């Protein structure tokens, strides 16, 4: 008899899937709905700005998307033309222009791609909202990337644009999603003050909460009886250790299912989960590492190797540069200069792979210290080796 997969519907384990019922985030969802009550009760009278913050895999994105679905539905019933748009800033390279362009093309798909500034585009967006009588809630997910790239300006403009038209209905509300609130320190005081009033903090999921989430996903994605309770318990336990990361838990489960399929067994056992652990990194997705450009990979390779040599918690910028230069030599690449590396550090830290902090005491002057909080240096090196292998092979031929 041909082998039948343990999966019933794999899409339910996809990172983009929005579950119909949100577990363990109901109070937060209610709070968010409270903040936006005016949007359906007295549209146009005021706008709102809310920040959702929490570590990786604590349900920030899904909370916002769930809220978005709910409020759009409610608005429809009340005949209010409300649109919710979820934008991942990193996807648009943290460029305000590209984000705005994406928003405008929602209404005019063939809108010209060039020939105007971000400011003009924002005005155009406001004009469209006015002409079509639309109330708009924009969620800026992974806001770090936008702040990193453009600083205070975009948020300042977005939060203050309504102030210029005081007599007309206010149409633009904002939800900002951040991993760490410390990013707000990079904004100027006036922008910070307009954003900081409503903050929803999501704590890490506990083991029992993770189990509930996994049970629900198992029901949706796997065939009945293929995932025993001990598999779920183990996956939940491991994910709790990874900072209560539900995304990690779900990915573990999916990969464990894939292992079961490869072995053609009808049960996803705890052993499959253990195997999966070696291939899933909390907070960093493998495809994201693979998608980095060559020099960022070489930079990370240097970081990973140097961490293994020193065994310390931090590396100084100088040490990292040296390690990167060695990696470049190995791959026959001309090393990028200091300024470019500095950009990489900022980018990779907003991306979550590395973490930066300023040195304080014990050293003369200040230097940036680089940490690797989420992934073992050895695992990172292995992962990079895999993606860089083809280049090495190219030399050999």
């Amino acid at each position, binding site marked *: 008899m041909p082998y039948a997969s343990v999966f019933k519907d794999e899409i339910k384990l996809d990172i983009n899937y929005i579950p119909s019922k949100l577990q363990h985030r109901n109070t937060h969802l209610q709070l968010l709905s409270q903040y936006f009550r005016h949007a359906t009760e007295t549209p146009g009278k005021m706008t709102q700005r809310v920040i959702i913050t929490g570590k990786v895999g604590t349900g920030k994105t899904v909370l916002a998307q769930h809220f978005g679905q709910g409020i759009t539905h409610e608005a429809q019933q009340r005949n209010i033309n409300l649109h919710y748009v979820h934008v991942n800033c990193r996807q648009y390279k943290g460029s305000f222009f590209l984000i705005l362009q994406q928003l405008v093309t929602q209404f*005019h798909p*063939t*809108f*010209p791609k060039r*020939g*105007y500034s971000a400011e*003009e585009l924002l*005005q*155009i967006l406001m*004009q*469209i909202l006015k*002409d079509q009588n639309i109330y708009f809630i924009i969620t800026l997910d992974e806001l770090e990337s936008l702040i990193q790239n453009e600083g205070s300006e975009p948020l300042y403009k977005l939060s203050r644009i309504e102030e210029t038209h005081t007599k007309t209905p206010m149409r633009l509300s904002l939800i900002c999603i951040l991993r760490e609130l410390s990013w707000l320190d990079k904004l100027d005081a006036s922008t910070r003050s307009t954003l900081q009033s409503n903050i929803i903090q999501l704590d890490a999921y506990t083991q029992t909460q993770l189990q509930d989430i996994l049970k629900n996903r198992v029901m949706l994605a796997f065939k009945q009886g293929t995932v025993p309770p001990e598999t779920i318990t183990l996956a939940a336990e491991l994910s709790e250790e990874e900072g209560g990361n539900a995304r990690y838990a779900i990915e573990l489960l999916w990969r464990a299912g894939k292992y079961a399929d490869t072995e053609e067994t009808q049960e996803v056992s705890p052993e499959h989960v253990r195997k999966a652990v070696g291939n899933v990194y909390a907070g960093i997705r493998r495809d994201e590492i693979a998608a980095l450009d060559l020099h960022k990979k070489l930079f990370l390779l240097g970081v990973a190797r140097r961490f293994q040599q020193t065994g310390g918690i931090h590396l100084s910028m100088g040490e990292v540069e040296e390690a990167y230069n060695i990696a470049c030599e190995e791959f026959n690449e001309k090393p990028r200069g200091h300024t470019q590396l500095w950009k990489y550090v900022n980018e990779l830290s907003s991306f979550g792979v590395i973490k930066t902090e300023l040195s304080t005491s014990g050293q003369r002057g200040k230097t940036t210290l680089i940490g690797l909080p989420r992934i073992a240096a050895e695992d990172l090196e292995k992962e990079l080796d895999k993606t860089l292998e083809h280049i090495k092979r190219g030399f050999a031929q």
Partner: protein
Amino acid sequence: MMFEDVFSSRGRVRILRILSEIGELNISEIARRAGLNYTTTNEHLQVLEKAGLIRHKSFGRIRIYRFNEENTKARAIRDLIEMWEQETKSA
């Protein structure tokens, strides 16, 4: 405007076909797709708008033209174009 005034130009017919297919576009893009220069395209667009077949909306410096779905003549032209294209394909 007389029927033959609108349809006497190959460029105008081409613009009508493009807009009926795509829905809406800015002038430069219409010009590019029709293989015409900007000024000629602009002139044709004004004639077509005067005839009520298309409409435009300005966003700052950008003008976006769209097929005028509300106009009976425009809808009839679109149907004619669609039917024509289908017949040509199947022939």
